[in-house]
């Protein structure tokens, strides 16, 4: 069996290597979703790296498109495209921009403006259900993203329409663009707000593979016809001490020397 912990480390290393010195990246909010993506792409999703548009695939949408670096690195590691392509990330002439682009093999939807992914996911899961297909749809959102009213339109709709093939995951890293989510627009207790909309809600640790596995196993067993909402507690900048737990890692840039230092230190932990 694939060692998910090792995969997550390799993905983080690739992300650090892809950073463009002195360029502002959404590094903190990319590092917070590495375990979720690693778990999905290496252990859970039905995907076809050499045939990305295979009709039997599950769909993953990164609604928090600013976390694209983690998605690109995961897709690259999973075999969707070469490391050479990944290393063009955010560079002039590249097709891998800072916000997720569907021009990249394996990326289903171009995102970057918040509050789009869940509704698109509903459209896909509706089509799968009506066509009696078993494909599932996973949408990863940020906690700050839930400020967008469009998400609440989608939350109302998916619960009412019993879209049990739809799984929303919230990367609850507790920070958004300007400050802590608790200071900007506190949504807690989020679980109690989502449940009455006829969703199954799971509170989980977004960095612990065993707990993530338990959560997804529970979803697989669920038979009450409700869509699934995972609140994954995460840590911004997770896995790299220079960024971990720091609000400023949301838009952090590093110079060339710091980048090499961070990578050097990170390699010692492999």
């Amino acid at each position, binding site marked *: 069996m694939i060692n998910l912990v090792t995969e997550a480390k390799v993905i983080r290393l690739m992300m650090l290597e892809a950073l463009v010195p002195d360029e502002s990246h959404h590094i903190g909010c990319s590092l917070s979703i590495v375990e979720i993506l690693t778990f999905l792409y290496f252990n859970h999703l039905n995907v076809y790296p050499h045939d990305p548009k295979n009709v039997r695939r599950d769909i993953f949408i990164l609604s928090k498109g600013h976390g694209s670096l983690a998605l690109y690195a995961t897709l690259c590691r999973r075999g969707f495209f070469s490391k050479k392509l990944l290393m063009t990330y955010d560079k002039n002439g590249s097709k891998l921009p800072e916000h997720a682009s569907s021009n990249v093999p394996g990326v289903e939807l171009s995102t970057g403006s918040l509050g789009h992914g869940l509704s698109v996911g509903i*459209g896909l899961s509706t089509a799968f259900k009506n066509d009696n297909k078993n494909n599932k749809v996973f949408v990863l959102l940020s906690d700050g993203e839930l400020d967008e009213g469009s998400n609440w339109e989608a939350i109302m709709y998916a619960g009412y329409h019993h879209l049990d093939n739809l799984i929303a995951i919230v990367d609850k890293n507790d920070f958004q663009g300007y400050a802590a989510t608790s200071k900007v627009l506190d949504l807690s207790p989020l679980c109690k707000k989502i449940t009455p909309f006829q969703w199954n809600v799971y509170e989980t640790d977004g960095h612990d593979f065993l707990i993530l596995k338990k959560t997804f196993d529970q979803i697989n067993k669920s038979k009450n016809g409700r869509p699934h909402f995972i609140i994954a507690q995460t840590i911004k900048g997770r896995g790299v001490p220079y960024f971990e737990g720091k609000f400023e890692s949301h838009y952090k840039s590093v110079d060339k020397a710091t980048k090499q230092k961070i990578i050097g230190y990170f390699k010692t932990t492999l």
Partner: protein
Amino acid sequence: MRNGVINEIHDYMKKNKQSYFLTGDLGYNLLEGIEKDFPDRFINVGVAEQNMIGIASGLALSGKKVFVYSIIPFLIMRDYEQIRNDICYHKLDITLLGIGSGISYGILSNTHFALEDVAILRPLPNMVIFSPSDEIEAVHGIRYFNNHRQPLYIRIGLRSEPIINKEPYDFLFSRGNILQKGEDIVIFVTGTLMEETINAAVLLKKEIGTESTIVNIHVLKPIDKDIIIKTSINKKLVVTVEEHGLIGGLGAIVSETLAQCGIRVKVLSIGIKDKLIKQTGTRVYLRKLLKLDYLGIYSQIWQALRK
């Protein structure tokens, strides 16, 4: 026009089982036939347009052809970014059925008017804009576009627009349609002001002997540049007529085209001025007030010719 459009789409949905119809809780007494015949493929999303466009996009990403129905401002303004990012950037097979072109909604007033729709949709990549003049053109256009796989906006009137075109009608994509030829001026017109424009041209000939060429521009994007240039050369005046604001609509399209091609001719844009309509009234009343009835169109052209 609206009923003809819905009947045509209803027929199409019988043949194409991969088609869906979404509404944002509008279309009472109109869409029930589609709802009854295709309960799984008709979705009333509720009063939630951002979600509606997102759902349409997800359906289209999975290979469906999707029609989305609402009153124009709710259909394209509330959720403009979803249209831009989700539909246009991904070049999805979604037809936006916008009801209530211009001031069709009359006494419902400004919130329900569509005076900026062409201006805001024109810049979107991959978007096609179809602005039919009557039900015949709308229906033939839909038959054509049903074999077309990219974002489409149809600017639809309401119930009782006059029929101008005749069967059999040959719909040619992005090709302006010359209704009559005259050597003095050319009038480009789009949408449901066709009859008023034809009547204004009759009056121009009768009163001051001015002969008009009238060109129906039913596809505003991509625009038929050739016909604009060809019919504008050697004219005293180029006129555009539209039930849309003067900023960014047909008047702008024609002016840009002529300027880009170096055609030196004066353009008179007839449409709705850049200020809020404060009077309440029916479409007929408001057209008269805003000089968009045939007399108003006539008098504006007459004045421009005098200068």
